[in-house]
């Protein structure tokens, strides 16, 4: 069990680990010419070529209820594209649902490792967990009311899931402690806040003012999540930085860490 993150040890990734070898391979690398002229822009060219041929990651499913079908038809007559709102609601629902799992993971680490002065409390983490769960419920209800299938993975939900793939990986890695986990939660909460803001703007823009008002309450809660997570993380880092350094014997141990 390891509560600290930044101890000195036998890290071998840098060139200073073996100055003679690294000087030798650097010299050899510079002495041999590449087999092809150009630079990294060639990779972008190929990516552009594929982008032109691409048809995206997928689509928003059609409405499931008659009411949804009718609403979609009306919106389309009014000249707006209703699937955008459905797509973004799908994104929010998926993100909030994942958020619950993230806070379950954080609670597990709190139990095993404890907290620190100014660090997360069980009540604090549980409160955020419950908020995420209720936000998931809120967006699911909204989707159902709009005649959409809340279980579908929409294109924006997929994009955000790809973008945040590393967050659950940090939370579930037992080698990464509670503070490391908060770094991942910070990324989640920053995204959460910005995305709720944009969702509210979108809701108002497409005339769903009642939903927008309800979403504003969720955003208020998210703002508190962000400041809590940020505060916990920051106090953890400050505390470790102020703590007495590791004993020398630990720092100069010749064998790899075991």
């Amino acid at each position, binding site marked *: 069990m390891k509560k600290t993150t930044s101890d000195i*040890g*036998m*890290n*071998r*990734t*840098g*060139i200073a*680990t*073996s100055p003679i*070898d*690294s000087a*030798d*391979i*650097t010299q*050899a*690398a*510079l002495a*041999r*010419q*590449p*087999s*092809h*002229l*150009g*630079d*990294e822009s*060639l*990779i972008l*060219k*190929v*990516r552009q*070529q*594929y982008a032109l041929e691409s048809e995206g990651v997928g689509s928003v499913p059609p409405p499931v209820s008659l009411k949804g079908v009718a609403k979609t038809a009306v919106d389309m007559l009014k000249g707006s594209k209703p699937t955008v709102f459905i797509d973004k609601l799908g994104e929010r629902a998926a993100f909030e649902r994942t958020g619950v799992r993230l806070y379950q993971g954080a609670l597990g680490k709190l139990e095993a490792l404890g907290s620190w002065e100014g660090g997360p409390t069980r009540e604090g983490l549980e409160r955020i967990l419950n908020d995420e769960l209720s936000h998931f419920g809120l967006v699911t209800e909204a989707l159902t009311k709009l005649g959409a299938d809340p279980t579908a993975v929409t294109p924006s939900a997929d994009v955000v899931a*790809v973008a945040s793939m590393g967050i659950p*990986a940090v939370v579930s*890695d037992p*080698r990464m402690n509670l503070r490391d986990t908060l770094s991942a939660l910070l990324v989640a909460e920053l995204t959460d806040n910005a995305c709720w803001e944009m969702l509210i703007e979108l809701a108002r823009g497409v005339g769903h003012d009642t939903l927008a008002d309800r979403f504003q309450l969720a955003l208020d809660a998210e703002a508190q999540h962000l400041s809590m997570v940020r505060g916990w993380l920051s106090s953890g880092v400050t505390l470790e930085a102020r703590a007495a350094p590791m004993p020398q014997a630990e720092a100069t141990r010749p*064998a*790899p*860490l*075991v």
Partner: protein
Amino acid sequence: MALDIFQEKGVPLDRQVFTWKDLVRRPYSKLDDDAFTRVCVIYMNGILSDALRTKHAMSRMNRELREQLAIIRRVEQFEQTLINWLNPPDQTPLETTLGFEQVAIEVTASVALREPDPYLAQTYRFGLLEDFDHLYRYGALYDRLEGKDPNNITQSYTDILVGRPTSVEHRYPVDDLRRPYDRRTAHPLTKIHAMSITAAENQTHDYYMTVGPFFSDPVARQLYAEIAAIEEQHTSMYESLLDPDETLLERCVLHEAMQVYNFYSCLAYEKNPRIKEIWQRFLDYELGQLHHVIQLFQKAEGRDAAEILPKTLPEPIGFKEHREFVRKTLNEEEDLTSIGTDYVRLAEVPRDHRSFVYRDQLNSDGSPSETVAAGYQWIPGTELAARAARMGSVYEGKKVH
């Protein structure tokens, strides 16, 4: 510390047991463990996956051996699990890929240096220069896709530079086949080498075929497709060194001896006690499996296993850098290719040769390995570190950004 494989009986098969907790252990550290710890883990995963692959192929074509093969194979599957699960979750597929190529370079170099048969040694040097180029191509991909330094993984042991360019490695299928050793006259070490490198290359192929589709960048997807194709060629090349006239049980005995030798080599190298303990345990397991198979072999064929096995194991594989040897080989043999089973200089091959036609067809829509590394030279800290340095000191305020 020569190991007498006839004296050492290891752990009997019925005592080779596991639990899920035992199988899923704390992985090695990507940051703190030595690159050769990763090399051993990746390499031994390949050796065990070949133990399974070989036994599965045999089971599909032989009735009598099925039960015995199933019993040993089950243990080997767990050995492979425990080893493969030592790879840490913060090590991405591309980082593990860099590790695979470091295996292919350093283990093949060690094998090439010790191989008693000059034709097989030539084959290892030939393949080595191609895998050497792969490290450079994947290194460029790692730098240019993610802004990360491939030497963080290879830890200054291995050169990251152009080998025999991957784009010219594509050959017509029969130009990858080699002449096998002769089971009656070949040195046991020759057989062990050929089986080991075949195993490692086959696993490299399978790994690239598994992780290639996880990449989003089309050049990355193409590069994995291209290098997987070469690993398929390498698998074909190295497996063709094996004498197809060995009996199934003879091959089984040799394969177990090969596994023993490789665990013994890892044990001799490893400094991390947590990992070393695993190599010791599986060395003992493999000795148990070897003796089990020797019994079957002697009973079925009425031959003494001492006819085909060395009394003591040869010197262990050198898990260390081989830069001088690799550079010398690159200098002397970069321009080699093969026609059928013979090595020739590229310049001596007529322009309309089947392998050139084959290669030009594959590269006619562009070459991923050339695209990814266009103008690439490895430098500590990524090519962006060099670019940032050229901007002059930002800290000193001579430039404001």
